[in-house]
C-alpha cells in the first residue's frame, strides 16, 4: 500500500522507498527505513505535507514523496 493512502494516526511499517537515490538516503537518515514503524500525525492545512512520528522526531514530507513509499 502507498503511504499517501494511510489515514492519520494509523501506525504502519515501511516496506520500500522508490525515490531517487539522494532523496532515498535523506529519508533513510531521518528514519524512513524498511521495517521501521511510522505514524502520520498531522496534515498541513494547505495540503502540501504530512507529519510523521519517526523515531521520536516529527518529520514532514511532501505528498509526492509519500506516493513513493510502500508500507504495510
Amino acid at each position, binding site marked *: 500500500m502507498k503511504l499517501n493512502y494511510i489515514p492519520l494516526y494509523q501506525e504502519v511499517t515501511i516496506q520500500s522507498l522508490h525515490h531517487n*537515490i*539522494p532523496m532515498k538516503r535523506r529519508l*533513510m537518515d*531521518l528514519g524512513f527505513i524498511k521495517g521501521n514503524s511510522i505514524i502520520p500525525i*498531522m496534515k498541513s492545512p494547505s495540503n502540501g505535507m504530512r507529519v510523521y512520528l519517526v523515531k521520536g522526531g516529527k518529520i514532514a514530507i*511532501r505528498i509526492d*514523496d509519500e506516493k513513493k513509499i510502500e508500507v504495510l
Partner: protein
Amino acid sequence: MLFYKLRKANDEINELYRHQGYTIALLGNPNVGKSSVFNVMTGMKQHTGNWPGKTVELATGVFSYRNQLHHIVDLPGIYSLLTHSSEEEVSRDFICFEDCDVCVVVCDATMLERNLNLALQVMEITDHVVIAVNMMDEAKKKNICINLDALSSLLQVRVVGISARNRDGFEELKDAIMQTACKKESKKNVVEYPELEKSIQRITQNIHTTFMNKRFLALKLLDSQVHTERFHRYILNIDEIIDIVNEEKQMLQEKGIYDRFEEIIVNALQQKAYEISEKCFIINDNKYLDKDMKLDRIVTHKIWGYGLMLILLAIVFWITIQGANIPSDLLSRMFMHIEMWLHEQCAYFHVNSFLEGIFVDGMIKISGWVISVMLPPMAIFFPMFTLLEDFGYLPRVAFNLDGFFQKANTCGKQALTMAMGFGCNAVGVSGARIMNSPRERLIAILTNTFMPCNGRFPMLISIVTMFFSGIFINPWNGVFSSIILTVIILFSVMLTLGISRLLSNTILKGIPSSFTLELPPYRKPEVKKVIIRSIFDRTLFVLGRAVSVAIPAGIVIWLLGNIEFHNLTLLMHVSNFLDPLARLMGLDGVILLAFILGFPANEIVVPIMIMIYMSNSTIMEISDLTVLKSLFIDNGWTWITAICTLIFTIAHFPCATTILTIKKETQSWKWTCISFLLPTIVGIILCIGIHAGIDLILLLFHL
C-alpha cells in the same frame, strides 16, 4: 623599524596560536543545540535558532583550557554523512581532510537513537570522538533516563551529559575533549556489514594510503554515489586500487548485493544505533509528546492555524509600530538638535551656505532621518521574530504554507524568508541561505522585495487612512491599521507566489526539489540572548549599510533640490521629465521621482514628496494626516492615484541596502540586475494595467 618589530611579534603570536591548541569540530543533527554548545564553549555568541539547518557558513571560535587556546569549528547541522547535500559534504570533508583533533558529536538526549546514527558514522572515520549528550534537563522533564556510562562503554568513547541552556557539564566536556585528543587510534570496527566485509577487507589489505582510516576509505570507494576523486591523492597505489574496487563492485553486482548497497549500510548503522539505544535509553513516560501534540493541533489546524498566523502577524506589527513611535520621536528630536547646533556653528564660523546646505541639510539630515525611522522598528521587530523562531513556531509556518509554495514550484521555507522580509528585505535576502536548492533560493531572493518592509508600512498605512478609511483614525493607534496592513500583506503574498511561479516556469525552470522538514519540539526561548543577538546580528548590520548609502544620497537630493536651471530646480526638471510615464501609471512625476530618490531607504519617499510639493529645499514631514491629505489633493491626487501609489510601493525596485545584500549573496551582477528590474517592471505593468482598467470602467459606466 618599530613596524617591523610589531609585525614580527604579531607573526610570533600567530604562530603560537596556530601550533598550540587542538582543533575541535562540533557536529550533530540540526536543532540539537549545537550552536548553543559552541556559544557556551567560546563565549563568542553566534546566533542560534530553533530552525533546522541554520549554520551554513562555518563559525569558528577559540576557547581556553588550562591556559592553552584551542580552536573550535561549528559544522553545519546534518543527519548523516551518507547523503550528499552541500552541508554534509562540508562536514565530511572537514572531518576527513582538515587537521581536526577531536570531533564532538552533539546529541539530543530526547532523540538519542537517531542522533547515534550520525555518531556511529563519525566514529567510522575517526576514533577521536566525544559524544556530548545535550538537553539532559529537557530529557529529565520528559522522564527520559540515559545511562551515560553504559553508552560510553558500548561506544568506547567518552560520553558527557551536558545542558547548554543551563551551562551544565562543560568542564567535564572540556576534560573529555583533551583526553580524547591525546588518545591513540585503535583499529576496532565500529559497525560490521556482513555482506560487504569481504570486499572491504580485500581493499584495506591492498591499499597504501596516507589517509587515516583505511576501512572508511574502502567503504567510500565502493559507494557509487561518492565522488571518490577527492580521496585519490591520498592513495599511493591508485591504479591498482581502482582495478580492485571495480572487480569487487562487479562481484557484488553479480551477487545482487550492489543494488542494495545503501540499504545494507544504513540498516547496519540503524541496527547498531537501535541496539545501543535499547541498552541505555529509558523512557519512563511514553506520553511526553502529548503537550506538543495539543499545541501542534491548534497551530496546524485548517482554520485556527491560518488564523493564528494572521493574528500573530498583526500583533507583531502592532507592537512594532506602536513601540517604535516613541524612540523614533526621541531620535529624530535628537538629530534635529544636532542639526540646529550645526547650523549655529556654521553661522558662527561663516561657512559658505552652499557647503552648509550639502553637509547639514543633505548628509546629516537624510542619514539622521533614516536612522531615526529605521532603527526602532527593526530593533523591535527582529527580537520578536527571533523569539518565535526560538520557540519553534516558524517551521510550523513553513509546514502550514508549503502547499501554496508547492503550487508555485518552490519550497515552504520561502515563507520564512518572506516573514523576515517584513522586517527588512535585506535580512530576508540573506535569510534565504536556509534553502538547500539554489534555484529555490534565487526565487526567494528575487521575490523578497514584494514583501513590504518596515520602511514601507508607515507609508502604506497613512495612504490607506487618508484616502480609504473615511473616518479619520490616527494610524499609530488602533487595530484598524493592523487590519489594513494584513489585507495589503495578503496581496503581496499572492504577488510573491504568482511571480515565484512565473519564475519557475521561465528563467528559473525546474521541478520543486524534494523537501523534508523537521518540526522541532517547542522550547522556551532564551529571551535575553535573543534580544541582544537579534539587535547586533540583524539590526545594526542593516543600519550600517543603510547609512552608508544615505550619506551620498543626502548630498544628491540636496543638490537636486537647490540647483536652479531656467528658474526651476533640477528636481522639478527631472519630475517634469518623468511625468508622462508616471501619468500613464496613474501617478505623477513627483511620486515617481520620490520613489527613485528613495532608493537608499524607502522611509524617505513621503518626505521627498512633501519636499517637492511644497518647493522646500530639504525633506520634511507632516505629522497631521488631514494637512497631508489636503496637500496631496491640491497637487492632483485622487483615490486612483492612491491605489496606484500603494501598488508601486509594494512592487518597485528593492532599496539600496537590499541590492547590496543581493549582490553579496548571489555573487552575480546578472541576478542583482534582474532583482532590480523584475519588481520594477511588474510594478509598472500592474500600475498601468490597473489605471487603464479603472479608467475604462469609469468610461463605460459614465461615472
